[in-house]
């Protein structure tokens, strides 16, 4: 079974039950947030401790991609520290 989400408007498919981080990594995306200095970040700890993987899900910012399961139709936006 697959789920389909959009990432900054682009459709991306993942496996049902996968986290948003896993869907993004599997699609070849390595980073989806920039820090205050503009440096790119993606997954680091994988279990919700480091907050490096934050992104916006359906308009709600600061969601940890490594904890959040992807749901069909989720609209994901990448994030910069300034948005937060």
């Amino acid at each position: 079974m697959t789920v389909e989400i959009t990432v900054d408007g682009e459709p991306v498919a993942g496996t049902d039950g996968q986290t948003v981080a896993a869907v993004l990594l599997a699609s070849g995306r390595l980073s989806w947030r920039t820090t205050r200095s503009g440096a790119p970040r993606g997954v680091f700890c994988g279990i919700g401790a480091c907050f490096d993987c934050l992104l916006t899900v359906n308009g709600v910012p600061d969601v940890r991609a490594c904890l959040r399961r992807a749901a069909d139709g989720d609209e994901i936006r990448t994030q910069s520290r300034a948005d937060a």
Partner: protein
Amino acid sequence: MTRVVVVGAGPAGLAAAAHAVRAGADVTLLDQSAAPGGQFHRLPPGAPHGFEAILSRCSWWPESTVWAVAGKRLHVLRGPADGAGRERHVLEPDALVLATGAHDRTLPFPGWQLPGVYTAGAAQALAKGERVAVGRRVVVAGAGPFLLPVAESLLAVGARVLAVLEANPASTVRKGWSWRDARKAGELARYAAALARHRVPYHLGRAVVEARGDDRVRAVVTARLRADWSVVPGTERTYEADAVCVGHGFAPRPELAVAAGCALDGGFVRVGDDQRTSVPGVFAAGELTGIGGAVAAAAEGAVAGCAAAGGVPGRALLRERDRLRGFAARLAAAHPVGAAWPGWLREDTIVCRCEETTAGELTRAARDPAAPGPHALKLGTRAGLGPCQGRLCGAAVSALCGTAERHHRPIAQPIRLGELAEVKENDA
């Protein structure tokens, strides 16, 4: 009937719930994740997890995050991770078992903030639970036996593992292992055989000292280390790699225990013989009280669950737990963190990932006679003030600045202002 709440459904929490039920308690088991198993039992989405029997005998609350504790009163948010509009609940049990586990401990090194650098646990979680390989050409490095299953899992999802590096030399590692640990040694031999089959070199006394790349990892520099983890000059070796997985052991997640007022010892929750903390009615088990692996965590959980329900843990149960704790202590001695690791850092190496505070800024601030004290240091450099609240950098910052690590994080897990403003809290 005694009402027991168990926070965390890893090996420790699951065993605690099972034993509390057996001792006659009414048990609520909750976890932030949607599935039980914690960091150890991970299955691809949808696979049967094998805990159905125990979950059917207690109230199982998946996707439930405890964000605050006051005494034994727990504040819980139920719903998708970090979502808006989750349901708020309050639980006030007779006894509480905290089994919130640990996260990887990772020492900083130049380039560790680059995308493509992962903790060993993250690589493991992605491989085991999500069937995703973090890279095509991967170096696995750090300290401890956990690196071996990480490499094995990476191979299983199709990554090429260029090398596995244990920072401690053979002389240190040998000290910790003994004939008493034959079963565990057998398990390690199995991993070693899997690595050999894939021609993955395993080196002792070597570490990753730098990750290179502009926007992502493109190369990894390793070097030979002395027993204190100082770098032997001229022994650097560069691998072309797209990922590096590093872990220097684990650090407990004590936020809820600290909020409940439990005393700590060296960052771990202090427990008595029956896993009782310093706060009446609050018990702790698993990696929260010491790093010992899943089997030791489960043994502690069994004792905690039984005691929390008002039972008396059996002698065999206590003996098994003590044996496993002894093994954990020997393992810690075999894979220590060498004191000379700050030698890897440069002036501009980031130490606090959230605030991008560098090693140079920290050591200058610590040396400044006008601004002593950990609080002033934090405010001056912003280290530990970002979203992770020092979870990742706390130990490194205190090592570099000669201050004690503080574990006080008033909010254990983030809650949205909208959720906080919502007055309705459901008693359960």
